[in-house]
């Protein structure tokens, strides 16, 4: 019995080993493992050449001075006109030859004296017309002496004297940065700033996203179906209205684009009004809730002046920036910065207006839904749920259908309009029928799951692939690289951040909630202080990654040093490429060091 068991065990082990061997054998086959190539002589000389080139990064260059030492030479010998040197100077470089004339292919010996010590250089044959033909390389010793065996070239016979020349190039003066070093410097700076911008923008978006992607913050957000359905309808109507209004408003405010004073004046005025209405509508302590009328009025005012501020802000910054670029001279980039900020605001304005109007309408309707659900009998609530949920489902799916239409251009309203509407309505109906009328549904978890899914999807796409898409969108250059890296940063950081939020201690959250704080206050007072150290740490870590990523994102046209590196590799200029690799190594290593110092300080 025991024997049988141990036999089985040995058999199992043997089979496992055999299987492992089989797997690795197949892996060798698939990956073309061939160590014969590594010993191939041609390949070894290539790799030696490349490694030596890499060891000589093209960073410095010198002014050079050429020292040419010549002796006359006759090819072929002609008795009559031949002159041979007879006296040799004692302390100046000179050459001596075993013969001063000869036939083609004759071997002669050249000796050099008083040459610069320990240097190398070529030995040339100089024809009467001044053409150089290299015969040999020489190397001098401690006395500046060399000896070189050469074979005379096969040339047309010429009567007059030609020459044999030894050339030594020596560096003079201080080393200078080579062109390659200067280009590398330019691009490494670009690389660092790509990483900086991508990390900054990515972090900015990732922080709020991470709260939505944190289970412990979202799990308590629940609302009844009535409220959800109302809210969806409100949001959709609101966003649509907002977009329409934004178009009109932008057209209405078009003159502001022309006139800087008008723009700046409007900006100051609208900020002032916004501040005023904020102070008026929100006392520092609200012991009593303000009346509904006042609240509606104040939110309308805030929305109105907020939107006005936005429009004036965008328009005036654009104009201001554009006018500043010229007069600022080398600081013109500041003007461009202001212009681009304005551009971003202008670009975002319609979207922001749509979101604001959507949020207001969605919120109002959601409260209405909550009231309905709280105060009406269950039967009526169920009836309202059935109608509203079907409607909301239909509208949501029609939106999805239009996305499908945009991508696939089916141009078939049955497939992209009626079917989705029907399916959405049916799903809404089923939901309304199945869930108890007044039960709160886990809306927080729905947002959580959607956010997580999007983040996971985005994160699984390599930044290099994103960069290719970005290059198509905004053209080759560092901007494309920044966009791609920023997008990947959002996905990666939001996930890391949200896991930190999930692991914070729940006690302070409970305590702050118990004081009557709302969700926003809870996040600011109980969550944020707990997550600052890990957030700093992860942001630094991400910056580190972004610097490394931005060094290769240039391979696909995303700007930065990668562009230069890939170019030089393709040109087989390994010395230049070596300088770029060195720069990358220095930057990555110092980034690593800086980030570890900062992390140590704050964590």
């Amino acid at each position, binding site marked *: 019995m025991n024997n049988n068991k141990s036999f089985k065990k040995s058999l199992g082990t043997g089979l496992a080993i055999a299987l492992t061997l089989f797997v690795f054998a197949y892996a060798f086959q698939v990956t073309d493992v061939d160590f014969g190539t590594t010993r191939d002589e041609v390949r070894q000389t290539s790799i030696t050449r490349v490694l030596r080139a890499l060891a000589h990064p093209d960073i410095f260059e010198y002014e050079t001075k050429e020292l040419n030492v010549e002796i006359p030479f006759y090819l072929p010998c002609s008795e009559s006109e031949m002159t041979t040197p007879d006296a040799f100077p004692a302390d100046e470089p000179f050459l001596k030859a075993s013969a001063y004339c000869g036939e083609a292919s004759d071997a002669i010996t050249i000796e050099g004296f008083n040459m610069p010590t320990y240097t190398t250089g070529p030995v040339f044959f100089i024809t009467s017309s001044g053409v150089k033909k290299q015969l040999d390389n020489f190397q001098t010793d401690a006395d500046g002496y060399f000896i070189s065996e050469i074979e005379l070239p096969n040339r047309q016979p010429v009567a007059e004297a030609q020459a044999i020349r030894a050339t030594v190039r020596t560096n003079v003066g201080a080393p200078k940065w080579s062109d390659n070093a200067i280009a590398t410097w330019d691009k490494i700076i670009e690389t660092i700033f790509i990483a900086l911008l991508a990390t900054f923008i990515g972090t900015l978006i990732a922080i709020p996203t991470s709260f939505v992607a944190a289970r412990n913050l979202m799990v308590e957000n629940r609302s009844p179906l009535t409220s959800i359905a109302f809210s969806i309808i409100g949001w959709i109507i609101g966003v649509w209205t907002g977009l329409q209004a934004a178009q009109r408003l932008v057209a209405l405010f078009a003159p502001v684009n022309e006139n800087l004073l008008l723009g700046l004046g409007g900006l100051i005025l609208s900020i002032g009004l916004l501040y005023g209405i*904020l102070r008026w509508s*929100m*006392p*520092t*302590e*609200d*012991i009593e*809730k303000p009346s509904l009328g006042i609240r509606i009025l104040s939110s309308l005012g805030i929305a109105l002046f907020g939107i006005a501020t936005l429009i004036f802000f965008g328009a005036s910054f654009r104009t201001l920036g554009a006018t500043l670029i010229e007069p600022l001279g080398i600081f013109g980039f500041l003007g461009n910065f202001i212009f681009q900020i304005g551009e971003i605001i202008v670009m975002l304005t319609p979207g922001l207006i749509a979101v604001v109007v959507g949020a207001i309408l969605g919120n109002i309707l959601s409260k209405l839904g*909550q009231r309905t659900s*709280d105060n009406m009998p269950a039967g009526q609530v169920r009836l309202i749920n059935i109608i509203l949920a079907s409607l909301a489902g239909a509208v949501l799916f029609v939106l999805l259908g239009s996305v499908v239409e945009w991508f696939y251009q089916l141009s078939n309203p049955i497939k992209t309009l009626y079917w989705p509407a029907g399916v959405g309505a049916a799903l809404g109906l089923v939901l309304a029928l199945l869930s108890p009328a007044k039960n709160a549904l886990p809306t927080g978890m729905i947002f959580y799951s959607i956010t997580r899914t999007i983040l996971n999807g985005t994160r699984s796409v390599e930044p290099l692939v994103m960069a290719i898409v970005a290059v198509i969108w905004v053209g080759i250059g560092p901007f494309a690289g920044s966009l791609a890296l920023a997008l990947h940063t959002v996905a990666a950081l939001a996930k890391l951040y949200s896991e930190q939020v999930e692991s914070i201690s729940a*006690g*302070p959250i*409970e*305590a*702050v*909630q*118990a*004081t*009557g*704080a*709302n969700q*926003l*206050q809870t996040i*600011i*007072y*109980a969550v944020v*202080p*707990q997550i*600052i*150290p890990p957030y700093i740490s992860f942001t630094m870590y991400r910056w580190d990654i972004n610097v490394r990523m931005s060094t290769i994102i240039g391979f696909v046209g995303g700007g930065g040093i990668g562009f230069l590196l890939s170019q030089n590799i393709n040109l087989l200029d390994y010395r230049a490429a070596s300088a770029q690799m060195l720069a990358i190594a220095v930057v990555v290593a110092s980034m690593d060091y800086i980030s570890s110092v900062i992390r140590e300080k704050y964590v």
Partner: protein
Amino acid sequence: MLEIKNLSKRYEGGPLALDDVSFKVPQGEFLAVIGLSGSGKSTLLRCINRLIEPTAGDIIWNNINVTQASDGELRTIRRKIGMVFQHFNLVNRSSVLTNVLSGRLGYVNPAMSFFNKFPQNDIDNAYKEMERVGIAEKAHQRADELSGGQQQRVGIARAMMQKPAIILADEPVASLDPVLAHSIMQHLEKINKEEGVTILCSLHFLDLVHRYADRAIALNDGKLMFDGPPSEIDDDKFREIYGKEAERVG
């Protein structure tokens, strides 16, 4: 007057943590809640300000039904109910002052919270509350630099910033040594006697119950086993509450 009516709580997939508990607490009473670990004391206290949603029953406080309140109403109710925790639940990396001020969050304008700004009036009050519990000189230290007893005093100051009508104290002295325990209990007693704040305090040690509470209720397995003055807890009652094997300590 706080009235608990037929309160039950069942955690998802678990047994009843609270089983049909009913009692009344007149304004200004010091009520001790006793029972074994896991008997439902914390659940009961957290149901009162709905940090935990009760499954059934009602909580009526000054004619307001807390269990039916909407989110907005609940926040206005919560700001009149302070809470003190066994593990203090301070925000460790924030200053003592910020921790104390966070008691005002239910009152201040939420927009101001973005800038961590409180009205001067609240700041003055915060110093008064910190002085009352003797930690005013620690105002600008980080909360986790304080000792356990000091941290619990920050917790009390935070609760007092709410100008509460009720304080729920969930084993406020269980993580402190006996000397500190008395000092914390004396602070609570002072608040109870001087400000007329109702205190519901869960406690482990019976001598603390005898010394500080006007009345005690006892829970065992989520059921209300005893409701009366602490002096009525004799050996028989004690075994009923804590089980037959239990022996009194302290």
